Structures are given as structure tokens and as C-alpha cells.
């Protein structure tokens, strides 16, 4: 397949542990097969700094937890033809959303004051503003496909991508579940 016909793929890591990207890398030798059909144009695993204006498939890992996450989710939705919510954090909020039951001030104090010995105090710059509530991605932008799992296995990601490349819409509930 020529370069011109390659599917463009962008991925981003919002509020999560990056385990979904680790699973993506766990494709191992299948990454070579994937690279023949897919061009990764933006991702934590490539050096590109800017999301291209038009991308075929976007994959978002992690929940929407900060203003920066919200901006990225909206940017991905605006530029990606097909948007995948990958992993439990993206699909349900998962572990990051467990802070939702606490007051945000208490959360910040816990992280930056109570548990810190050297220079305790909330950072005033260089950190994105936390949203009051952590949200799944589809609660802020429209999502085309949901892939559950914490993280989804490499086999799950492979099945989703190969089905998409074949022009089919996969049903991830057939091979993964919440908490997998």
C-alpha cells in the first residue's frame, strides 16, 4: 500500500496511567504490520508536536480531568473523522473519577500540602486547572467507539484496529469488558 493511502492515526493520553498506550505498544511485532497500513501522525510515542487538521482515526486514553484534557478532547473531536474512547478511564472515568466524591479543595490540599514535606503549597502556575468533576470523554464530546478494559489488552486493540482497517465497525463488548 502506498504512503498516500495509509490511514492516519492520532492518539493522546489524558488523565490516566498510560496503561492503554502500554497495551498499544504490547502489539509487539504486529506494530510492523500496522505501520504498513497506518501512519501515526500524533501520539505520545511519536515526536510530532501538532495534531494535523484532518486525521482518519483518533484514540483518546484517560478521563477528562483538567482544562487541558477538555481542550484536547475537543480538538480531537474536531479533527478526527472517527474517535475511539480507549480504556475504562476514557469510557467511564474509572480511577481518576474517584476524586469526584471529594471536595476539590480537599483533593488539592491532600496532594500538595498534607502529603508534602518539602515546599508544601498548591502550585500557582505550570499546571492545568483541574475540573470540578472528572468526566468520561463521551460526556464532553461525541465518541464513535468505546473500548472498555483497564487496560484493554493488546489483542483487543489489535482486533479493533484490524476490523476498522477492513472497513467494519467492531463490537468490543465481544472481546473485552470493564475492568479487564
Amino acid at each position, binding site marked *: 500500500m502506498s504512503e498516500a493511502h495509509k490511514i492516519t492515526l492520532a492518539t493522546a493520553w489524558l488523565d490516566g496511567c498510560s496503561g492503554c498506550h502500554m497495551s498499544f505498544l504490547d502489539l509487539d511485532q504486529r506494530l510492523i504490520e500496522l505501520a504498513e497500513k497506518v501512519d501515526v501522525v500524533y501520539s505520545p510515542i511519536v515526536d510530532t508536536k501538532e495534531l494535523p487538521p484532518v486525521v482518519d482515526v483518533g484514540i483518546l486514553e484517560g478521563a477528562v480531568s483538567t482544562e487541558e484534557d477538555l481542550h484536547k478532547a475537543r480538538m480531537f473531536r474536531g479533527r478526527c473523522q472517527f474517535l475511539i474512547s480507549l480504556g475504562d478511564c476514557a469510557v467511564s472515568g474509572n480511577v481518576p473519577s474517584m476524586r469526584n466524591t471529594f471536595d476539590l479543595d480537599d483533593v488539592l490540599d491532600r496532594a500538595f500540602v498534607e502529603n508534602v514535606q518539602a515546599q508544601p503549597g498548591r502550585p500557582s502556575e505550570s499546571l492545568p486547572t483541574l475540573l470540578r*468533576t472528572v468526566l468520561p470523554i*463521551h460526556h464532553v464530546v461525541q465518541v464513535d467507539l468505546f473500548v472498555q478494559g*483497564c487496560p484493554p489488552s493488546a489483542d483487543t486493540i489489535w482486533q479493533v484496529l484490524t476490523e476498522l482497517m477492513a472497513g467494519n465497525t467492531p463490537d468490543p463488548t465481544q472481546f473485552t469488558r470493564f*475492568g479487564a
Partner: protein
Amino acid sequence: MTHPPAATNPAPKVRVVTLKIDDHDVGARETDSILEIAQANGIRIPSLCYLDGLSTWGACRLCMVEIEGFSKPVSACSTTATEGMKITTNSARLKRYRRMILELLFAERNHVCSVCVSNGHCELQDLAAECGMDHVRVPYRNATYTIDSSHDLFRVDHNRCVVCTRCVRVCDEIEGAHTWDVMGRGVNCQVITDLNQPWGDSQSCTSCGKCVQVCPTGALVKKGTAAGEMEKHDDFVPYLAQMRKRQ
């Protein structure tokens, strides 16, 4: 020597009825529920609050089915069969309703599967996969419920409770202790021990652990179990229920 006839009452006569479930002709006793008949004939109807051996509660509504001539779906666990019934267990409407019920359950409390001790051994999690619930469309409530670790052996995490009342029923009907009960209404409904006292202070709890074993989620667990370690075994309930009936 001939024995006089037993003075016991003769067993009540139960009529046999014939009906159709998903176009399969089935026969059953008229006292059987639709769910029992379906299970006896290998027809799967999703259910959560129902447990063989315990009384029927009919709370979760996941087992709802359509009956020809009925305008609304009915719960299969609490509806008995009648002659000539035509039942549908898996229509598009029922699938839609079941998925919505599961979404509401997931949104109501904290059901983060990945950090749950029952991950991989949870009936709610399995039902979500079975019913194709790949995401929750309604807003999460993010409500805070308490965790009671006061018991020496067990823990109750109300965040993960679906208020199926299996624990209440097994404690009352099988163990005979009635430590568990239900308090509150609507989303504020929750199971309690004794008069909403800490489980560890309970005078009635026998520490038998039946409630833990029948709990479908990670709400009732053994202490010391890590994520994914808590496996439940509720297969003793039908046996004990049978033994009770024979006494």
C-alpha cells in the same frame, strides 16, 4: 400388620400448563415463575436480584419479559406461568431496557471495576458485558456512601451495593438471624445491619458469611482480599433451602 394412612394433608394438586417462550413449546407447573421455567428449559434471561433458593424480590427488573397481550413488560421472576402464554425474552425493546437499567445502576454508585475486589467475579460486571453496555450515557451521581469495616471477617462497601437484598433474604430465610435489613427510599435506600449499627457491633450476626457469598458485586467481601481476588460461591443456597423445606 397394615399401617393406618398418614394423617398428613395430601400434597396440593398442581396443574401443568403449556406455554411458549421465544417460540419454544414448554410445559411447567402453574406455580412456576417464568424465570424458573426458562432456566429449566435452557433459555437465558438476565437477572440480578433473583437467586435460586431465596424468596422472590423482583427489584432489579433485569429479568423483564414481554407477554403477548400485556402492554408492559413484566418481571419473569415474579410472574407465574398461565396456560397458553406467549413470552418473548430478548426483543430489541427488552435489550434496550436492560441496558438502561444497567447504566443507571453503574451511574448510581461507585462501580469502578478495575480496583474492585470482585473484578472478574462480579455479576453486575458480567451482565454489563452480556447486555452490551459499553458505556454509560447518563451522568454519574458521584454520591458518597460509607464503608463499614468494623466486622472482624467481612466488610460492606455501600458504594458497590445494588440493593438486590440477597444478603437480607439469605440472612433471614436461610441463616435465620435477620441481621440485615433495608433502610431509606429511592437512591437513599441501603442495606443495614441490626438497627443501622456497625456490623462489628451486631448482636445478631453469626459471622456465617452467607451474605458475603450471595452478594453479586464487591459490596460484601471477605477482609484481606485484593482486587480480583474475591470469588463468591452461592451454590449452597438452593441446597439449604431444600433442606429447610423438608424439616
